């Protein structure tokens, strides 16, 4: 068993990045995620593992530093919160187009605009449906605990390299700020330059006389060529849909009703389940862990055996669209959400279940 510590979610992300063998972190301060870079700077990973940590002049610069670093094959990441992630969308689109592996952590806060610094899940659409321009997807992980904040960093890097794609951890200000115990995985050595060169034959890190030059770009002016790029990307996303779906079912075996929720909302639903079951309402929870690929078949299998589904989100109703597409229209599906930085209470959630689903 690894080292046990009490940590903030943001700190767990930072410590996990060092331990995962990350080569470079590039970021810009924004609440509620600044602890990521603060922890890294205090921890001096440049001495611990040789990892580069750099405070960029903007989120725009930070994401393009990621593009540069990833294009050479190095393991790079950034973190930010909603307005900063909006600024990064152009760069993320370029990275998806150029097929570059990188990890982007979004500690979501309420929007739109400058919004609030309080937690929210209002960036679901942006993360899952593309966000930037062009037809692309990211693999999106939704941690619901500080432990998962840590574990998803390693998983995210693994998947980023496996599929040569940007991966996003879609968390929120509450999980980023809250402290929980976390079991840290052991240090994975950073790859040497020679290992990077060997493992990333596609990367631009200096052309030896033995091969052609490598070019990292998302540009192909020939429409037929650009269509081929798109088809390749779509095939990759199809493969992710087949192989990378992650989800959790809690008390679904005897459930007559179902909550579907991700991240922090799923934590709240766990408490709501206890309250509801004490009242004799048999309710379970389906928690998607990957938001893309979405657990389409899995949520449908559970959802089609209950009397009604309440999708609980800290937004105005975003994931509910994917739940409805997955489950179909035979089962009643309603949304309950609070937004603008308000975290719903378990009581509210149970009340919504009773009013919108059971009594509705």
């Amino acid at each position, binding site marked *: 068993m690894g080292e046990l510590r009490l940590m903030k979610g943001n700190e767990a992300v930072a410590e996990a990045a060092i331990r995962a063998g990350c080569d470079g972190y590039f970021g810009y301060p924004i609440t509620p995620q600044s602890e990521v870079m603060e922890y890294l700077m205090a921890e001096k990973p440049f001495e611990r593992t040789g990892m580069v940590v750099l405070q960029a002049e903007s989120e725009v610069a930070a994401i393009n530093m990621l593009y*540069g670093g990833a294009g050479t094959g190095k393991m790079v990441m950034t973190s930010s919160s909603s307005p900063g992630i909006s600024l990064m969308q152009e760069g993320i689109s370029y990275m998806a187009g150029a097929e570059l592996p990188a990890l982007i952590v979004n500690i979501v806060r309420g929007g739109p605009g400058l919004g609030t610094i309080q937690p929210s899940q209002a960036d679901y659409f942006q993360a899952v449906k593309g966000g930037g321009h062009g037809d692309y997807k990211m693999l999106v992980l939704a941690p619901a605990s500080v432990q998962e904040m840590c574990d998803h960093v390693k998983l995210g890097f693994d998947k980023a390299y496996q599929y040569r794609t940007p991966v996003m951890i879609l968390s929120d200000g509450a999980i980023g700020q809250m402290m929980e115990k976390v079991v840290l995985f052991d240090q994975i050595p950073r790859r040497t330059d020679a290992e990077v060169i060997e493992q990333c034959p596609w990367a631009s890190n200096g052309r030896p006389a033995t091969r052609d030059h490598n*070019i990292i770009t998302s*540009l192909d002016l020939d429409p037929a060529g650009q269509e081929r790029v798109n088809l390749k990307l779509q095939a990759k996303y199809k493969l992710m849909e087949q192989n990378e779906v992650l989800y959790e079912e809690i008390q679904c075996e005897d459930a007559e009703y179902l909550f579907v929720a991700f991240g922090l909302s799923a934590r709240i639903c766990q408490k709501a389940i206890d309250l509801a079951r004490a009242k004799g309402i048999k309710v379970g929870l389906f928690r998607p862990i990957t938001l893309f690929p979405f657990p389409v078949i899995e949520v449908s299998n559970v959802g089609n055996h209950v009397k009604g589904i309440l999708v609980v989100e800290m937004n105005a109703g975003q994931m509910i669209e994917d739940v409805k597409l997955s489950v179909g229209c035979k089962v009643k599906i309603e949304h309950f959400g609070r937004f603008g930085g308000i975290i719903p209470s378990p009581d509210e959630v149970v009340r919504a279940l009773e009013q919108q689903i059971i009594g509705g």
Partner: protein
Amino acid sequence: MEDKFAKTEIHKPENIVYKKSDLMVDRPLSYCPGCGHGTAHRMLMEVLEEMNIQDKTIGVSPVGCSVLAYDFLNIDMLGAAHGRAPALATAIKRLWPDHFVFTYQGDGDLAAIGTAETIHACNRGENITIIFINNGIYGMTGGQMAPTTLPGMRSSTSPYGRDVPTMGHPLKITELVAQLPGVYYVTRQSVHTPNNVRKTKKAMRKAFELQKENRGVCFIEIVSNCNSGWKMTPVQSNKWMEENMFPFYQLGDIKVDGKLIEKKETVE
């Protein structure tokens, strides 16, 4: 019949007096005839070849006319988003400190949309070389006004000439970055005559030699023509450049060994 001028005959080492750098990909350039980009590319590749650092060099190309530079330069390259080349180069150099890293950017890329990345990479003193091609216009998108367009100069978005009160002043970003302590060597050159080409190549060599010593940013501006965008013949455009661009963008060293060079009054 034996052909005395067969390719094999010409290519015999004893018959070759000057040849294209092996680091130039054997492919027609996408630039307009008369454009300075091709010469700048070639000088850059000759320098890398002479220093024998091509296997340790990573280049970053911009968005603009030279967006396809990676197709012509036979070294590992990355195509950046518009204006972001210095951000890419920053990360690349930090992650591969024993490699040589350069950006190759036009005036719209470097001095308009990428101003923040340019200033901050320079101010951090990144150990990179920035090659800045200034032709006072957006070439690829069809001749629009650039941050470096001269007062009164016509472009497709300043069809009656750049009106300074409403369109702003041309930006001398090279003089601006020269003020920053992270910048070690700044020079402004051109590639329109053999003599100027030699000077440009010498400046590029110096910049890469200094990069080896981790001296900070080396910044080379090349004032160039855009005969298509300026609506002139190549010969006319070079003459116009000498008469109009050079008085405003004076050629020569601006900062050497980390020290600013005293300059004569420039035309405003």
